[in-house]
């Protein structure tokens, strides 16, 4: 019964972890510029994410180590410091983007500029982390995140073109704006295959004291949860394809994206969009801040745990506190939240090799995966992802310059 409950919660958790500002922005921009043509990177990213999340959970259940703990243990500190520093820099930008998204959601409703909301949003996140147990982040925030289902309702009510959707599942060459097309592909993949999700998920598994008996439930959570998150991102793209593409609107600001559901759901569409943006971003802020705190503490051998009293894990608390103090300033200084989001998603894609290469070693080492080492399908997916990640790392910066807009 407990595991069944965990399955449900795991699926719900994926909403907070998956549908955040990066997914909303990149899917909406893709739908507005290319209608259904960019559904395939969402599907591709979701499949890859299912495999990687499943591996992170399996690793944690068997070895009782998180991904970063296992990385440090297997490759030593000298290697570990590379992903730690690289990912921390990129994750800082992603965190700033999420704070910008939540702040913008508040601007939509109140009319008070988003720059004024950045610090209160970070403070709220910090208070939730300081006062709340892990279950708050893992279960309650994502439970409220069910509001994001409005994208599926909206997409269905807009009467999508099912034939074009099926065509969009197959990669095709763009008929116009080639650089922008590929830039959006990179952005969608960066938003979907977010490394912090894997660090957060494996840390959650260790906090939840998973053991070998969780292998099957972990598989279900990864498949159902991430598919559900992917479906939400696809719904955003479909809604944008129905509303913005025929109108010839290019999305350069969240103000435009906020109109997505107003035609079909009226003022409910507006307020539920703002609520979805806020909750999705808040969930992501909490998960990202914790993921970096976990990664740093586990890698440096510090005591860690969200269920511990803060005074018992001071350095763990210090990491997420420092992050939440530093991250809002990009937004306070007036950098456009949508621009920060685009840049951070592209850079996330660029740093994927650093995050993913260790998987191929760890998941084939019986010391860490026991008798649950990867099968050939898992290895093919990881190798494919590594190759794709390396290509993305090379093309991201030129695409950002040419197609980033």
């Amino acid at each position, binding site marked *: 019964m407990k595991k069944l409950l965990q399955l449900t919660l795991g699926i719900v958790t994926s909403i907070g972890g998956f549908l955040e500002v990066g997914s909303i922005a990149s899917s909406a921009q893709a739908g507005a510029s290319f209608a259904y043509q960019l559904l395939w990177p969402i599907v591709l990213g979701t499949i890859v994410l299912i495999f990687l999340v499943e591996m992170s959970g399996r690793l944690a259940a068997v070895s009782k180590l998180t991904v970063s703990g296992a990385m440090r243990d297997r490759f030593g500190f000298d290697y570990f410091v590379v992903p730690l520093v690289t990912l921390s820099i990129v994750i800082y930008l992603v965190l700033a983007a999420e704070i910008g998204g939540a702040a913008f959601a508040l601007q939509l409703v*109140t*009319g*008070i500029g988003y720059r004024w909301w950045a610090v209160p949003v970070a403070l709220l996140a910090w208070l939730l982390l300081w006062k709340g147990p892990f279950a708050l982040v893992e279960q309650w925030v994502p439970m409220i995140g069910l509001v994001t289902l409005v994208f599926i309702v909206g997409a269905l009510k807009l009467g999508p073109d099912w034939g074009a959707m099926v065509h969009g599942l197959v990669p095709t060459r763009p008929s116009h704006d080639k650089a922008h097309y590929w830039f959006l592909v990179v952005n969608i993949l960066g938003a979907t295959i977010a490394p912090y999700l894997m660090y957060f998920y494996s840390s959650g598994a260790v906090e939840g004291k998973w053991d070998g008996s969780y292998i099957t439930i972990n598989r279900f959570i990864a498949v159902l949860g991430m598919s559900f998150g992917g479906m939400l991102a696809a719904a955003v793209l479909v809604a944008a394809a129905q509303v913005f593409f025929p109108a010839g*609107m*290019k999305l350069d600001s969240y103000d435009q994206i906020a*109109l997505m559901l*107003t*035609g079909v759901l009226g*003022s409910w569409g507006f307020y539920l969009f703002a609520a979805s943006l806020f909750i999705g971003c808040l969930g992501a802020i909490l998960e990202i801040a914790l993921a970096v705190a976990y990664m740093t503490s586990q890698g440096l051998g510090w005591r860690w745990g969200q269920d511990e009293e803060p005074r018992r894990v001071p350095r763990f608390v210090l990491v997420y506190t420092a992050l939440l103090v530093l991250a809002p300033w990009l937004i306070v200084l007036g950098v456009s939240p949508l621009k920060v989001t685009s840049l951070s998603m592209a850079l996330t894609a660029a740093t994927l090799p650093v995050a993913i290469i260790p998987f191929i070693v760890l998941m084939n080492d019986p010391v860490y995966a026991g008798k649950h080492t990867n099968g050939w399908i898992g290895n093919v997916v990881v190798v494919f992802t590594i190759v794709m990640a390396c290509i993305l790392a090379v093309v991201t910066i030129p695409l950002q310059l040419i197609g980033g807009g």
Partner: protein
Amino acid sequence: MATLAALAVVGCSGSPRDEAKKALESLHSWAVSTQMVGERWMEGAVPDPYASKALQAFGKKVRKERDKIASGKLPADMKRYLVAAYDSTARTADSLMSDVDKGDRSAADILKQLSARARAADSLEGRLGAK
């Protein structure tokens, strides 16, 4: 007439034509965005603070793009046409914003103007694309 002349000039060369096409696409997008905010506001689907803030932001972005075009390398006739069209779109956004601030929901004329501007940009863009 000036527009057609400009079209003829930019139609001959690759890069200014692309630049003009992009500028027209963007003009169309901002005109439609402004129109959509106005329509939704008149229907009561979006709140006043949002509509006011969004229109202010659109006006600002349109002016920023207008400045870029003004200092760009487009042929003079096309530049003149685009700058005027951008200026006019920005003014319309301002005027709609002022209606929102006053709570005057009878802005149908402004929306018609925006619709016409978006259609004009669209048709010019189509002709550039066909060249």
